[in-house]
């Protein structure tokens, strides 16, 4: 792992560092937050940076840094969870399609084609409107939105692998479908799949933030990075840190993941 990291090009190292930083924040953020995120600690709203409040205060006079540290946990945590869920489901179905009988493949592929023809954001909006947006539902909806995309990629990988001689040999040996899928095929899909998980993660961060920005995502008092942008958007005119910092946080998170993926996949192709 360390060895691989050292061989990344500079852009990849920068990406990796920022990604690690955000993962760290998501893990320990709430414990190092200087104030309770919901507490009104500043007299002044939209205050600038000061020794007491590094990123100033928000539209109600709460500490932006503390809210950011907690909000980042929601954004990163939910996105990681949803991306993992989406890719596990998509890849699982893809493997089923690849090793299963022909009709299973037909059925799954058609179903996924149907889902993919509905734009993801519209789907998520409709689902949230219909079922509400508790934390669990929100994660689930976002995950489902990205299952078909991952399925497509994973299926084309798996179908390619299923034709390879080593899979044929295992099949001729009499191995069951589960063995073929999990032992012979999956390990050879991991690397390209990681790139896909990363991409889905980026999409999900943006989708979640977008939903929250529209007020359909996380509900107060919880707030993710998207909610932070939304609730402080009135400060945009005066360039308040309260709106700029969470926006920058979203940008840096997504861009760094992209940098890392680009660098990692390029290194492999070489």
């Amino acid at each position, binding site marked *: 792992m360390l060895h691989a990291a050292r061989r990344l090009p500079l852009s990849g190292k920068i990406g990796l560092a920022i990604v690690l930083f955000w993962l760290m924040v998501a893990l320990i953020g709430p414990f190092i937050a200087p104030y309770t995120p919901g507490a009104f600690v500043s007299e002044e709203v939209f205050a600038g940076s000061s020794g007491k409040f590094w990123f100033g205060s928000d539209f109600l006079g709460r500490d932006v840094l503390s809210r950011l540290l907690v909000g980042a946990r929601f954004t990163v945590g939910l996105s990681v969870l949803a991306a993992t869920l989406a890719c596990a489901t998509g890849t699982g179905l893809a493997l089923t399609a690849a090793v299963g009988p022909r009709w299973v493949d037909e059925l799954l592929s058609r179903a996924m084609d149907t889902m993919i023809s509905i734009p993801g954001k519209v789907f998520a909006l409709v689902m949230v409107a219909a079922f509400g947006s508790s934390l669990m539902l929100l994660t689930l909806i976002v995950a489902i939105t990205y299952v078909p995309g991952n399925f497509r990629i994973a299926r084309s990988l798996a179908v390619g692998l299923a034709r390879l*001689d080593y899979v044929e*040999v295992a*099949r*001729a*040996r*009499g191995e069951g479908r589960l063995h073929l899928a999990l032992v012979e095929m999956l*390990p*050879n899909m991991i690397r390209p799949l990681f790139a896909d998980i990363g991409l889905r993660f980026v999409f999900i961060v943006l989708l979640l933030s977008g939903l929250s920005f529209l007020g359909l995502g996380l509900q107060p008092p919880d707030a993710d990075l998207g909610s932070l942008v939304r609730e402080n958007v009135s400060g945009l005119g005066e360039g308040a840190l309260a709106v700029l910092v969470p926006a920058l946080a979203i940008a840096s998170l997504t861009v760094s993941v992209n940098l890392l993926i680009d660098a990692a996949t390029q290194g492999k192709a070489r």
Partner: protein
Amino acid sequence: MTTPSHVDVRDLSVTVRRPDGTLLRIVDSVSFSIPRGEVLALIGESGSGKTTIALSLMGYARGGAVISGQIRVGNASLDGVGPASLAAQRGNRITYVAQSAAAAFNPSRRIIDQVIEPALIHRTAAAPAARERAIGLFRALALPTPETIGERYPHELSGGQLQRLMAAMALITKPDVVIFDEPTTALDVTTQVEVLQAFRRVFREEGATGVYVSHDLAVVAQMADHILVLNGGKVREQNSAATLIAEPQDDYTRMLMSAAQPVVQAITPPAPKAATPLLEIDGIFAGYGPIDREGRPANPVLSAVSLSIGKGAALGVIGESGSGKSTVARVVAGLLTPTAGTVSLDGEVLAPTLAERTREQLRRVQIVFQNADVALNPAHSVGEILARPLRFYHGKTGADARRRVNELLDLTRLPSSVIDRRCGELSGGQKQRVNLARALAAEPDIILCDEVTSALDTVVRGAILDLLGDLRRDLGLAYLFISHDIATVKALCDEIVVFYKGTRVEHGTSDAYAAPPYHPYTELLITSVPELRPGWLADYPYQPVAPVANVTQSSDICRFLQRCPRSRQGLCDIAAPPLRTLENGSRILCHLDTSELAH
């Protein structure tokens, strides 16, 4: 004598940096020169530096390798020239014909546009002139319908045709040197002869200077004026082709020469056939694609194939690529369900699909594929790959399995240190041994070997054949041994079956293939194998009969008719060929009898 040579290479060395930082010389002070209009061959095993030398003539080094020494081609010296002029040199003054032309052509563009492209890029000719020259080259290369073949797309042409078109592309700019890198290695022997003949003719006509890279000494003997033998990046010997073949000076050259004619230590023929053969294939029809109402697949491959193999016997299957050899193995292994016919093991009929066969039945028949690169899972270590069948068939785990894995490595003559390595780190020969060891782990009665030696060099091939022979003697294994190379099959097998377009055209003992009579197709296969003497190609008796593609013919008459040099009008094109037994015991599918086929 004093005419200055056309290509001159002095003290060429190529150095690469290994992952651990140390330097490795993959080519070590190689010097040679080529007079104008002659061909120099570079010969050696894979890894001996042949391709590296060829590429460095173009000033090109793979993966950060460093080239030192002097290279002069024509009146251009390649040391110290900038990258821009190198690009010009490559496509214009020095051109390259690679092993796989199919991979080198763009599938979505017409052939002619790709062939004349170098001339247009380097402005050596205007489009109409280049087109005319291309057609001339097509004609010299004996391509069918030279005027119009260029209008086709790569997928409409055969491998041998593409290889010749690639040569046309290389010659279009009238280059100083053409480099051929194993240009016929991927072809069938019958196609190889046609391509070699075409190359020779075009070289004569064009007076081109060439570098011919190959591991096959017999091929090289036909093509080259001079031969340079390489081993481990060093020159072992260089001499004129005739002298080198007649009087090899170096031990390594002699080793290469003997490896070209593999001999496997004679095996006492298996005990007289038991009442029931070990494996019996009876009247198999099989193919690919959807199956229609009459039960025939869209792309039928095998028709009425029957074979039988006794305990401990070795049956060879030969034929050109696409003749259905692998399909037979796949049907026997249960990977492909035949549309008719049965496969029986020890008299017991095997179910047509894998799912219906018992684990014990599966264990007794193991399959080994040609290309060890894709036959071994890159995600698993050698130990894991070998342990799986042990656990699956014999329930062996833990120390028990570990001990058996070591025995298997021993049996296949692999060092026990490979156990924790991934297959990507092994050499081609080692991979093929692991591939075999995995089949042996099942303790099978018969191994289906599908072209297991075809991707290997002659020297490594010899070692694998020896191993197969020893395993057979020591373990009493039977083989269904598939290959397109008759020398390999003859060395290992007691009986040989010849396939043509999915039918069995000849079946006889190995000895029967030593001299005529054979089936006319077998004769074509045998006479197409280059012999280790210069001038063999010039004496080659057949004019290439290009197989006519996509001609529908009634399924009854001889499938070989279109290519058969011995065909009889009014006989072969009317009636189905009978199955007859020749005096040497071989059974053939042909209208002609022993006396007519003997000469």
